[in-house]
């Protein structure tokens, strides 16, 4: 049988400071983009008009832009969409726009007139038309935020019931990290944030939680099983034990997500991008954020057996392994790694 990472024995937690620095750097870069460029909200959120067209033959983008200017759509944004003859025209409602609810409809009709001029009547097909009034857009902005915060609260409660609040808090912090990292990723790629992308962020939340819970479940089990190891060792042991599962599951998930990214078309692509990144950050955060944060929480607010606070770091080789342990825990292994001093 093939086994990846069987009896793996890596000291993951040791690298936590490097991991924090890495993810911190990604976030700083992403948030820098966010501040300078802003979020590329779709018209669902800003209100406005989107028209996707399929032209019978190639028309230079300049001609279409000129025609749009001609019918008075100066601020409209025109973008190639997938193929050479496929375009998306977007006209957002600006903050100072005086267009009312009827305005978005008028813009959609004006795009039709512009196409009659540039491509000629009958030489194009309108594939998609969205006209969102300003009121609906404002409603959605609030809803997206509520959805993400609500999912945190529900998870916190569920994990507090199933595990204990320390685990819940660590899982939520790791997941909040994923949300921030995903937003950073979205702003670096300047992806358009539509409702579907918000859905993808929420799926990342679910996926990352799922992954964290698998590891925490093993931690809970190992805490009962190995009474003499400290939390540092238990965390490392649990991550190593679940490593083959992580590789397999992330492998199959990445395979389907890549299939979506490459094959499922332009409309779903932002969703697939966010999901692909989310799988990486979800895996990363379960190991390098959730576990160290749990360690930190245990040190701050020790639990009943206070094992987190007892020692922080790999114990000296003198510490015997627990009698029940059928495989050596990292602490007692004969690895060439030098023991880490407690911090």
């Amino acid at each position, binding site marked *: *049988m093939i*086994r*990846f990472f069987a009896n793996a024995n890596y000291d993951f937690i040791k690298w936590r400071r490097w991991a924090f620095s890495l993810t911190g750097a990604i976030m700083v870069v992403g948030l820098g983009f966010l501040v300078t460029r802003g979020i590329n909200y779709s018209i669902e959120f800003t209100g406005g008009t989107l028209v*996707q067209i*399929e032209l019978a033959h190639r028309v230079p983008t300049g001609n279409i832009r000129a025609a749009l200017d001609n019918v008075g759509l100066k601020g409209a944004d025109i973008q190639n969409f997938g193929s050479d003859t496929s375009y998306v025209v977007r006209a957002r409602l600006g903050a100072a726009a005086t267009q009312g*609810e*009827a305005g978005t*409809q008028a813009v*959609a009709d004006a795009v039709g007139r512009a196409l009659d001029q540039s491509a000629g009547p009958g030489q194009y*097909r*309108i*594939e*998609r*038309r*969205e*006209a*969102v*009034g300003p*009121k609906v857009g404002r409603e*959605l902005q609030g*809803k997206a935020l509520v*959805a993400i915060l*609500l*999912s945190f609260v*529900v*998870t916190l409660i*569920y994990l507090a019931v*199933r595990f204990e609040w320390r685990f819940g808090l660590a899982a939520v912090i790791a997941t909040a990290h994923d949300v921030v990292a995903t937003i950073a990723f979205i702003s670096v790629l300047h992806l358009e944030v539509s*409702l*579907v992308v*918000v*859905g993808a962020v*929420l*799926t990342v939340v*679910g*996926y990352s939680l*799922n*992954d964290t*819970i*698998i590891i925490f479940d*093993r931690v809970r089990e190992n805490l009962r099983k190995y009474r003499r190891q400290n939390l540092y060792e238990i965390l490392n042991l649990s991550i190593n*034990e679940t490593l*083959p*599962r992580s590789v*397999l*599951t992330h*492998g*199959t998930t*990445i*395979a*389907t*997500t890549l*299939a*979506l990214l*490459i*094959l*499922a*078309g332009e*409309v*779903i692509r932002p969703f697939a991008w966010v999901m692909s990144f989310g799988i990486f950050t979800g895996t990363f955060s379960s190991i390098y954020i959730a576990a160290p944060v749990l360690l930190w929480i245990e040190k701050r607010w020790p639990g009943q057996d206070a094992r987190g606070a007892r020692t922080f770091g790999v114990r000296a080789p003198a510490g015997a392994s627990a009698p029940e342990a059928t495989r050596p825990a990292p602490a007692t292994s004969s690895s060439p790694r030098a023991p880490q001093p407690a911090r």
Partner: protein
Amino acid sequence: MDKRIRGRLWVIGALIAASIISLVPRNTKQRVIDPSTGRLRDTTVRRLPINLGLDLQGGVHLALEVDQSKGPVPDCADAIQRAERVVRTRIDEFGTTEPVVQIQGRCRLIVELAGEKDQARARGIIQRTAFLEFRITDMKSQFKDALPQIDAALRKAGIKSRNAAPSAVAQLFGGDTSKSKRDTTSDANAPGVLSSLLFQGQMPGEFLVPEEQWPLVDSLIQRPDVKAQMPRGIELRWGAQTESRSARSYRPLYAVDSRPIITGEELTKAVARRDPVTNQSIVTFQLSRRGARVFSQETGRHINDFMAIILDGRVQGEPPVIKNQIGANGQIELGSKPLQEASDLALVLRAGALPAPLTIVDERTISGTLGADSVHDGVLAGVVGVVLVIVIMIGYYRISGALAVAALTLYCLFTLAGLAAFGFTLTLPGLAGFVLSIGIAVDANVLIFERIREELVHGKSLRLAVDDGFLHAMNAIVDSNVSTILTALILYAVGTGPVQGFAITLIIGILASMVSAIFVVKTLFLIWLNRRPNMVTVSI
């Protein structure tokens, strides 16, 4: 085979049978417009009972609210409820497959028409207020008599007459040979701001405004100081069509009684047809018995008067003269407009008027070709994803992996059956969610198999290792899946349309994967172990 396995096989068999039954193509009724007769007829179509969202089959999604731009509507919830009934009747008659008309929140109406090709027409039919009324024109020329006062009021407000071209009068009436009466007012009131823009039409109360001037005139008659000078009981209404005289077009303006003699509420029947003599499109209608009584009384009193037929505030055609009492039947002339427009008008008149004008706050239209492309691409991505997952699983876990793949096919079957059985709609994000969930669905099997391997490494016997592997993996599977379902539920509660479709697919997918990965795979394992009781190593 022991009893335990037999019982499990029965359950799996029943699940598969139920899934297949819920996925068998069935007949659904569709109302379509017969292209040859223009009438609605029911047809039945055999198709898979999975509802495709508008983004996959093409169609139009509209969110409508009561138009408050011309003054607030006090009770929008009540207005929307009444509008919902009217719109539903109109849509049902319009003839599309499974239209959705529902109230969202308090004051918003959602209309979804699948596969509708002529979206502009659909919008027109839904949004049209269709308030029909009959009013007698200003027979005593009260408006014309009040024109000097109105001009004076405008002059006082500091509005200067923008000289209408003097040749306009000559052009207008010089070229007209037959019907037009001589104009008398325009000369007398020439310096007046408003009156200089109005030309007397053919009947009392009819005025013609040059097409390029009508926005100006419209803004003038909307002014409160002009409205204050209007004679009591008289209102102004624009004509729906322009009239052309000697190569210039004019828009008629009518002064009419503010009290309608009858409204569209009394209408029972409306049919579109072509006038055999003039070849014009007309809509003939019939009034209710009560309506007919009122109508014949009123028309009897107004013989030789002109009657304006007003639809949504615009006078339709030229007001006809009432020659004798009119009973239950009447007609509206639409001139040279196509017959389809007449049949749309007949349709909205039959369905009744909207209680208040509606405005579209959100519109999404997807063409059928884009939808078909999305289905094609999504299915392709799904197939490739499944193949990759199969390769990974069998490559890594060998025979056990093959069992997981067998369970995966059942997973796909169960998920699709779940969508069909509960009547949920499959959207494009839902399709993506389904593809994604195939990757996630094997997670439970991965957890179980890894656990079995660990138990084997710990030196347990094969039988015990399998049992313990399933048992010990359960905690992690349940906790992780419940937390994912919780986030999906929130997504469903907060999201709309396509996102809800995604959440639903995710939830059904997780439930189906728990059944297939835990129950089905365990059964397959039990059969396998039973067949070869002496097996000591397992292909995992």
